[in-house]
């Protein structure tokens, strides 16, 4: 567990916008095939818990526009959250 996440966001993060607000996030994609057969890409954005976000908010990250589909806490302390995008 790290108390200061600033170095991680500095090294791995990029400029993104969440609900129209610019911030820094760590963008990633996973490729879980729907039903085990349909090619699919699920992008996600890891941001500080202080970033205001709700399901349905617009996100710009990785050079594309997305919509928040789900929000998960990354760690029990609640210092970060993971925005699952579609």
């Amino acid at each position, binding site marked *: 567990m790290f108390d200061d996440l600033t170095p991680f966001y500095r090294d791995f993060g990029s400029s993104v916008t969440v609900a129209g607000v610019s911030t820094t996030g760590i963008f990633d994609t996973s490729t879980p*095939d729907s*039903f085990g*057969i*349909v090619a*699919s890409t699920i992008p996600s954005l890891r941001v500080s818990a202080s970033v205001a976000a709700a399901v349905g908010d617009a996100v710009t990250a990785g050079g594309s526009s997305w919509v928040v589909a789900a929000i998960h806490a990354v760690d029990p302390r609640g210092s970060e959250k993971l925005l699952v995008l*579609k």
Partner: protein
Amino acid sequence: MSIRESILSAMVVTLSSLCGGRIYRSRKEQLPTLPAIVIRPESESDDGETLGSRDINLIVAVDIYARGEIPDQAADSVLESALSLIDSDATLGMGSDVQIMPTRQIEWSIDNYDDVSATLRLQIFYRKFS
């Protein structure tokens, strides 16, 4: 080729005008492009041979895969077209010993937010002579 396999092949031909021709038999390899249809046998039963013939019930699953903001809606036009094509010839062009029964079942499932699988189950009766 078995009558069963002929029925499944005839089903592929019947639906071949849909989904840009992306109609597959029992496929498990990844589908890169949607919509697409996978046709597979699900089960088969009969009550044994009587008077030199065997009456067989084959359950065929037609899986329609699509993607959209309202996933089940994304599969709707393909589903309706498939039903229309199936209704146009209940024998699948195989004569009076093959009959798609009026009973049908449709089941929708959603995955990864926008992807839908609409599974149309058909009961197909066929007669096999000894």
